[in-house]
């Protein structure tokens, strides 16, 4: 598994654990007599699990498993790293900003980072999404 995928997938797993933790706290809040403000964690819970866990997991698995390009291995690696950084920036900005009632521009900036992450990852993966033809020279890329 390439380094970028390891980073993506391990970060996604941490977000999964944190997202489940926040969800459990909110679900148990009435029974544990926690304050109603606990429900304000919801935006972070949603961002961590949808963006941080699911989307990031998809990035990591796609980077690892999509067909490699002849002579170019996994293609434009910088775009994929940019997508990873922008996604995390966006998820944390929107999630934490939502909990703290951040102003509209802050949330918009987070959403813009998520949008750019999607564009960057699509730019990376587009040439690799093609009909499969086995590489004649397997040394042109690593597994």
């Amino acid at each position: 598994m390439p380094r970028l995928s390891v980073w993506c997938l391990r970060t996604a797993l941490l977000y999964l654990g944190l997202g489940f933790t926040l969800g459990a706290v909110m679900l148990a809040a009435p029974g544990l007599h926690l304050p109603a403000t606990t429900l304000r964690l919801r935006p972070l819970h949603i961002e961590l699990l949808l963006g941080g866990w699911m989307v990031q997991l998809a990035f990591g698995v796609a980077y690892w498993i999509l067909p490699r390009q002849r002579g170019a291995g996994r293609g434009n690696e910088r775009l994929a790293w940019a997508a990873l950084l922008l996604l995390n920036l966006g998820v944390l900005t929107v999630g934490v900003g939502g909990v703290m009632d951040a102003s509209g521009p802050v949330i918009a900036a987070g959403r813009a980072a998520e949008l750019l992450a999607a564009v960057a990852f699509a730019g990376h993966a587009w040439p690799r999404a093609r009909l499969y033809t086995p590489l004649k020279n397997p040394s042109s890329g690593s597994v």
Partner: protein
Amino acid sequence: MIAPVLPGAQLWPTYVHLLVLGWLTQLIFGVAYWMFPRPLPQAFHGERLGWPTYWLLNTGLLLRIVGEGSRAAGREMNAVLVAAAMLQLIAGWSFVLLIWPRVRGR
């Protein structure tokens, strides 16, 4: 928005979690368990956590349906929801422990 047309908007979280947790997340858990690289011999082997994760996740989800369904019907079952939360919490971290050693380079 779909929520207002559902019979009882109070069941909206139940509906969302059935799909996102019961379907999508569980599908990911199953496929990751199947296709991620095997752990190295010297690494922590969390294979025994597979079945407990499955049962904890699904029992927690079923308890959630019972608890939120009862609430929507006007009868609070907070203890059931606390149990559902604990089971799902343990299931989530159990999956993290199970898969972490299998996310690795060559």
